[in-house]
């Protein structure tokens, strides 16, 4: 039997793949890895398809025992990973022996880390995806987060070991000053001039209440002033809504598919990977790009 066993569950550890697409009409979110870029790198390192399911860790990583020899990779947040007593690097392929234990400590940079294992995580896809979505308790490991004692089965062919690594310039830089690109949303003009200025020039932080559904943004300046009279409209990950309490909400992977707040701005899909690694203690700015 080929499986890994969860010794400690970590904070919010789940199975995610590239997402559950095609069901937004009935309100089912896309889900999938929050840092899609790091997830793709992790899969690439173990020669899995880029969209394959892997393990997403949040702040505090799980401890995992391997019951077979595996080829794995670690990307995303820096969890100070160890296999046994040895510190192991991120962004390279790793050969782990049967009986090895992978552990880490709370993220030193970034928020979300990815563990890819060569082969296929043997869980049932729901609506075409293995991504866990808490709202409907679907996908992932038996429709829930990964918990202590879980045995995650792997469907693997004979492992193909070939050392691989991600070059420095391809690795996401989680330490640098955060600048998040945005484009104007359809209701940008709902903000008054003062609010537009504070949106762009302000230092923002992400509320610690944020999760896979949405990130609430906080600004040291007075709250944004917005005109609220508008109908419900479609939204998607990256849309920044501005409710009347003046605290913008970024729709994320498990987020709603429609909303009644002005869509002031939009973070381009390929920039959400950087955004989703910002920690609540870090501040960032927005800047406009052309869509």
């Amino acid at each position: 039997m080929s499986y890994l066993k969860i010794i400690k569950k970590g904070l919010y550890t789940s199975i995610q793949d590239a997402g559950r697409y095609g069901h937004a009409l009935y309100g089912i979110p896309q889900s999938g890895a929050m840092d899609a870029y790091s997830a793709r790198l992790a899969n690439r390192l173990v020669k899995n398809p880029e969209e394959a399911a892997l393990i997403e860790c949040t702040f505090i990583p799980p401890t995992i025992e391997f019951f077979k020899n595996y080829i794995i990779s670690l990307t995303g947040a820096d969890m100070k990973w160890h296999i046994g007593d040895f510190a192991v690097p991120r962004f390279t392929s790793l050969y782990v022996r049967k009986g090895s234990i992978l552990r880490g400590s709370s993220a030193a940079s970034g928020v979300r880390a990815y563990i890819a294992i060569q082969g296929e995580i043997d869980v049932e896809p729901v609506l075409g995806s293995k991504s866990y979505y808490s709202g409907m308790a679907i996908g992932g490991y038996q429709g829930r987060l990964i918990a202590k004692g879980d045995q995650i089965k792997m469907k693997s062919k004979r492992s193909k070991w070939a050392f691989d690594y991600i070059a420095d310039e391809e690795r996401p830089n989680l330490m640098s000053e955060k600048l998040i690109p945005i484009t104007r949303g359809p209701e940008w003009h709902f903000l008054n001039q003062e609010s537009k200025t504070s949106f762009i020039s302000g230092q923002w932080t992400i509320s610690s209440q944020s999760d896979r559904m949405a990130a609430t943004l906080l600004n040291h300046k007075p709250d944004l002033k917005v005109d609220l009279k508008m109908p419900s409209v479609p939204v998607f990950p990256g849309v920044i809504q501005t409710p009347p309490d003046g605290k913008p909400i970024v729709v994320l992977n498990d987020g709603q598919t429609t909303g009644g707040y002005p869509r002031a701005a939009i973070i381009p899909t390929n920039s959400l990977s950087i955004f989703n690694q910002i920690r609540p203690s870090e501040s960032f700015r927005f800047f406009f790009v052309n869509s």
Partner: protein
Amino acid sequence: MKSIQLSDVNLLIDEIATGRHRIIVDEPVQNRVSAALIGQHISEHPYFQGTVSATSAEVLISKDISSEQLYAELKKIKFKPNRKSKNYNLPIYFENGSDWHDVEEKLGLSREAIINKLIQSQITVASFGFLPGFVYLEGLPDDIHCKRKTTPAKHVAAGSFGLGGPYAGIYHIASPGGWNIIGNCPIQLFDSNTFECPIKVNDRFIIKSIMAEEYETLKARPVTIEKYQKK
């Protein structure tokens, strides 16, 4: 924003992000061609299957195609805005609404008056979305349009029936939410296993105010909306 004429409907289209095209129906209000209905038609076209989300106000097509390609494909669709709509009874238990106090205050009406207005209204399915299985209902009289909460509640129970602006809505799953909750709908509008939905945009609902006994029975053994009609 560009414009496209389809049958007798004029659509305005613009790409609001890469691969995200929004469509607005540019039509006098009295014609009542909602974007949700247009969206439902588009979603049934194989080329657009799984790419559409929609509200009464807007359609969103999520597909990595150019605006030109989008126009070309949309032109192939025959719109039938006058699809036959079905009638359904919709049971609501109004005793456990957590926001009655705020709603009475916001609207300046008593609970009884608000319920009466709801059960006498011709409610129609406006659109879906927001959350899995969430249904937007329209047709409420103006005086019970109730502003959404300024800060969404952290927890809204599954089945909650609420008021949000011009709409009433039903939460299929428990979630955070900004609507004013005044009751609970104990039947299934949306199949939890297949995720299929028998009701369509423009179907009509008659709200039935149910008593505690019926509510408890239905809550314990939920039935589909189609089964409920046969009772």
